[in-house]
């Protein structure tokens, strides 16, 4: 093939060219027009941050694409090695800034397991409650931003109404609106008051009341359905092969949720459903619509968990005994937990005799989720590419860490 489009690469490094060329050979049999290479991002409203996607298009069709990440690589793992364990927790917040509490939760669990620290019962319940509040906030944002990607501005601003209230809730207990540093090693920062719990109840019923409103605007909207049905299908094989987790994998029909199937913290005490993709909810298994549907359903399930946790919550201390100058023995730990975006895993190695980790490694779910668009977005329209990236709900802070 003599005529080939310009390279997708940034600085002349041999990247992806071979692969893209091969793919082109495969699709090149049908009529092709002149191809263009776009750089979507790093400043682009649809890339949810600073993702750069080099897209080769033929008219409106995507022929090949290559995501480039690392634009906000913030050295979280290096910092994890350089700072004492307890000082690393705020950096976990900043990895996935839309699900800060969930990140703290998994990170603290890993460190506690490493040092053999017991967490009081009440603290576990509080952790579950705030983590589920955070999950709802994150999913609300995901739903709203997905609407924004598809051109519906209003759901995005409407969800902020509930989101602001939820953020205020977490603000009251932690002092931060977005990044909290509330879950600490050995427990949580401070106890929940009765007033706060009442406010929580009001908020949960408010969210429950508002959800049908959002569903009218998006989920049951004909235009929305036409945009998302049969678009960006991640089937079971593709999803598992690429390591997609969370709603992306569940939409493919995999009935797997760490909270239920590999229960961490005290999630095995609650009764909740794990929504997973099915062909009778509309669209096809694993398409954008099903991913959106899973998020909507998960909000409802999170509300269930919050209510149960609130009822079962015992009295007691919220902070366990953490030795001063915490130095865990040599060892390793690997913990995974269900974040709103997928499975966050934390692998920590302690060399012993030190208050710093030897290696602090995190698996950001978005990192694996976004990797697979190379495969699934091929041959789709540009408008669909936006829909796909939106439906994967990535947070770049977590991709780059």
């Amino acid at each position, binding site marked *: 093939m003599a005529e080939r489009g310009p390279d997708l690469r940034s600085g002349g490094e041999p990247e992806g060219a071979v692969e893209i060329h091969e793919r082109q050979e495969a699709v090149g049999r049908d009529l092709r027009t002149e191809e263009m290479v776009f750089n979507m991002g790093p400043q682009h409203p649809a890339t949810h941050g600073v993702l750069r996607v080099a897209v080769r298009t033929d008219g409106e069709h995507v022929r090949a694409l290559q995501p480039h990440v690392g634009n906000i690589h*913030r*050295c979280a793992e290096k910092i994890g090695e350089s700072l004492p364990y307890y000082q690393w927790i705020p950096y976990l917040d900043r990895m996935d800034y839309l699900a800060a509490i969930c990140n703290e939760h998994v990170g603290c669990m890993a460190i506690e397991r490493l040092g053999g620290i017991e967490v009081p019962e009440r603290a576990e319940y509080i952790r579950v409650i705030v983590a589920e509040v955070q999950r709802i906030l994150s999913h609300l944002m995901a739903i709203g931003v997905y609407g924004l990607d598809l051109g519906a501005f209003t759901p995005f601003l409407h969800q902020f109404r509930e989101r602001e209230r939820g953020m205020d809730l977490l603000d009251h207990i932690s002092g931060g609106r977005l*990044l909290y540093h509330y879950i600490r090693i050995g427990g949580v920062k401070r106890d929940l008051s009765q007033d706060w719990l009442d406010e929580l109840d009001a908020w949960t019923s408010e969210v429950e009341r508002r959800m049908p409103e959002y569903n009218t605007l998006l989920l049951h909207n004909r235009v929305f359905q036409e945009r998302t049905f049969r678009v960006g299908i991640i089937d079971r094989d593709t999803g598992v092969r690429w390591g997609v987790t969370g709603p992306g994998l569940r939409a493919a029909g995999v009935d797997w949720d760490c909270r239920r199937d590999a229960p961490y913290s005290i999630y095995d005490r609650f009764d909740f459903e794990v929504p997973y993709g099915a062909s009778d909810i509309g669209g096809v298994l694993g398409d954008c619509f099903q991913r959106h549907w899973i998020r909507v359903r998960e909000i409802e399930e999170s509300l269930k968990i919050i209510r149960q946790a609130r009822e079962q919550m015992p009295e007691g201390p919220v902070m366990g005994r953490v030795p001063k100058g915490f130095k865990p023995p040599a060892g390793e730990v690997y913990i995974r937990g269900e974040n709103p975006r997928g499975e966050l895993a934390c692998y920590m190695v302690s060399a012993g005799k030190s208050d710093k980790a030897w290696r602090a490694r995190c698996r950001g779910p978005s990192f694996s989720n976004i990797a697979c668009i190379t495969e699934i977005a091929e041959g789709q329209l540009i408008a669909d590419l936006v829909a796909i990236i939106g439906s994967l709900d990535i947070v770049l802070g977590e991709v780059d860490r």
Partner: protein
Amino acid sequence: MPDDAQPGEVLLDPELQQSVILTKVQWVKDWGRRNALWPMAFGLACCAMEMMATAATKYDLDRFGAGVFRASPRQSDLMIVAGTLSHKMAPRLKRLWEQMPDPKYVIAMGACVIGGGPYSRYGYHVVQGVDLIVPVDVYLPGCPPRPEALIDAIRKLQFRIQERTGESLATIEAKTGRKGAGAARAS
């Protein structure tokens, strides 16, 4: 009058400078600039979420005429650098800033872009201050700053535009040939 002469008017006759019409024209121009600060839809990290929250329901940046988030740098006046700036991103940020038409303003939102913030010490890949890359008009501390703080920063910028006849730091720098705060003082 020559002491506090505006850089944009130094070429003019001092008597002409005091003419009512010219001052009024300048005032009207600034009034427009001040009340129509269109930010660029450009978020880097955590602070971008708070920037979105500022534009959204509860805080509503649009009240001040600053809610028109333009995706194209060509049509925006204000770059809110919200989030951590990495070395990989820095050249792109610079380029985006260069694509914006004059007069342009920069708000450094968050501790990270002011001086590296929590990443300043071990974050090898974090640029320790966006002012190493582009001139900054308003610094807004916080991690992340609350929406009220961002609104305050934009109000401050608006007042400043009115006071300093709409010259952004970039323009002043170009005219005085001095960098950063020195240029601000020189004006």
